């Protein structure tokens, strides 16, 4: 099964969305690398939830709206998105830049959320703990540095890119730069308001995350009251791909507990 593809207009912006499964709603916010592909972890989540996997404004086949300047803009967009689809008791899952977006959303309003899952989220800064400079990574390094298990990178790198895919990558990088170049991958004000998050929150990290070091996990956990941190051993920045089964299992169990 693949996610059902549709184009939706929310707040004047046309986006592409994949949707699949039955059950309580789960909104997945992708990272800086982009979305648009129905991946195995979505398929597995769709056995338990109705999964909404939009491509962010400015990414992939979604339009780039005039109003998009910051991750905060994306957060408001997804609050509008939740209202537009009438979603209630949402399990909100965000990865990396999507995790940052999810945290910004939850700081603004947890009204329609049931649980929050942040997977290797960007968004805050720890003095003295440098994130990697993804904008200086060559294309091959970008893929290699995402995974602890290099056979995954080997498989991805074995498939040549079409010109179309290269243009999508360029578009995604452009939007990521717009949102996260300076300050790099964080909002200096977000940490002040993370205590406002009032739904059960699960933070997931790979202990070999090369982009956002695992030291950010405990920092996030301390800032979100009552949140729980789980770290995957021998895992990089993309546990949803590198540890699909465990990653999904934890989210399913966590959402069940939150009920």
């Amino acid at each position, binding site marked *: 099964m693949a996610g059902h593809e549709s184009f939706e207009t929310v707040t004047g912006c046309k986006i592409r969305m994949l949707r699949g499964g039955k059950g309580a709603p789960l909104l997945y916010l992708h990272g800086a690398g982009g979305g648009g592909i129905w991946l195995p972890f979505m398929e597995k989540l769709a056995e338990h939830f109705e999964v909404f996997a939009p491509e962010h404004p400015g990414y992939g086949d979604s339009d780039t709206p005039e109003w998009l300047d910051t991750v905060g803009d994306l957060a408001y967009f997804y609050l509008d998105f939740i209202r537009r689809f009438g979603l209630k008791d949402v399990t909100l899952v965000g990865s990396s830049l999507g995790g940052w977006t999810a945290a910004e959303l939850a700081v603004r309003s947890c009204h329609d959320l049931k649980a929050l899952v942040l997977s290797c989220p960007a968004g805050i800064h720890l003095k003295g703990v440098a994130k990697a400079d993804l*904008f*200086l*990574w060559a294309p091959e390094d970008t893929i290699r540095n995402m995974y602890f298990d290099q056979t995954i990178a080997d498989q991805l790198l074995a498939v040549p890119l079409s010109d179309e895919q290269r243009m999508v990558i*360029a*578009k995604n990088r*452009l939007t990521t*730069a717009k949102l996260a170049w*300076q300050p790099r991958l964080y909002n200096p004000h977000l940490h002040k308001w993370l205590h406002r998050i009032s739904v059960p929150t699960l933070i997931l990290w790979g202990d070999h995350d090369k982009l956002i070091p695992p030291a950010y996990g405990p920092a996030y956990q301390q800032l979100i009251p009552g949140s729980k941190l789980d770290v995957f051993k021998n895992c990089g920045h993309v546990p949803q791909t590198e540890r699909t089964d465990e990653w999904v299992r934890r989210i399913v169990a966590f959402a069940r507990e939150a009920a």
Partner: protein
Amino acid sequence: MSLKFFFFHLMPYAALDPDYDKKYNAAWVTLPNSYYDPKIGHQLYNRYLDEIEYADALGWDGVCVNEHHQNAYGLMPIPGVMAGALSRRTKNSKIAVLGRALPLLNNPLVVAEEFAMLDNITGGRLVAGFVRGIGAEYHSWGANPAESHDRFHEAHDLIVQAWTQPGPTKFEGKYYHFEYVNCWPRPYQQPHPPIWIPSQGSRETIEWASHPDRKYTYLQTFSPVSALARFVKMYHEAAAKQGYQATNEQIGWSLPAYAAETDEIARREAKPHIEFFLNKLLRMPQEMLLPPGYISLASMKGILAAKRGISAGARTIDEVIEQGIFLCGSAKTICERLEKYREEIGFGYILPQMQFGTLPHELVTKSTEIFAKEIIPYFRAKAGAEKKSARARA
């Protein structure tokens, strides 16, 4: 048709250890500044200023300084310091500041003020360059490349407003907002100093620079002559589309140059120095050169085609002479080449970069003199004769 000669200098760190690239992949951004020795730097700065001042004494039309940050390729991060030093020591030449990289600045009013000061001190010898900087600058200064174009336009509008509208005025932009725009001093040249736009070639820049409200001089920098031809044609077409005919005054070309007694001597003397420039100082990976948004998605293909090969693999002097990226030879050869290019393509300014890589002082001086004594007079005589015959016809 006159051709004006502007002496261009990058002021590289010529003492750079050539083996740096065994450990580091760029002479920019991440190359440790422990490679820089301030004692050598002190000598280089003063030597380079001497070279520029000598060009003025020899009667060049103008001299140029330049802006690059955190690299060994060019040591003028704050070009106004150099222009300030030159403003008193040079007497006749124009001084073109080919910075400033506007999108890097949090407050572009500093450029309005700095340029106005230089214009006052020199009594109107300033040429104001506005650039976006090369991609590496956005890494070095943490400026967002995705905002580069928009900030450039907004900063430009702010500076021109500061120069031309009686202050105080307000400025209400997206990136810059000022309650009091009131530039003291006002520029010496009225309404403002000539504005030049150096670029490596983009349709957006050309369409903007050629707009009838601006008609700015577009400078094609360090590109093959075929790219120059293509972008000059684009400028003329853009002007025609906007209802006027562009003149040669609106086009300039900047490239490294070296003149010696014969072609053979020139080639032999220039070879190690231009190759150091090409293979050591220009070295940087693609991600550094083109951060996201620095060029629009639409023009990405164009610029890649124009610059293809420039940072790939070891380059040789033969290649760059062949492609017309490097002007090298006897006075006669350089005159012929320039004459040919000027007739075919059309440009009013030539900005020979007279020092490149490790080229030592004696050779810079020799080449500068050959330009001043044989090449520049050739074109001045030609322009004079053309003017005379035009008057006779009239």
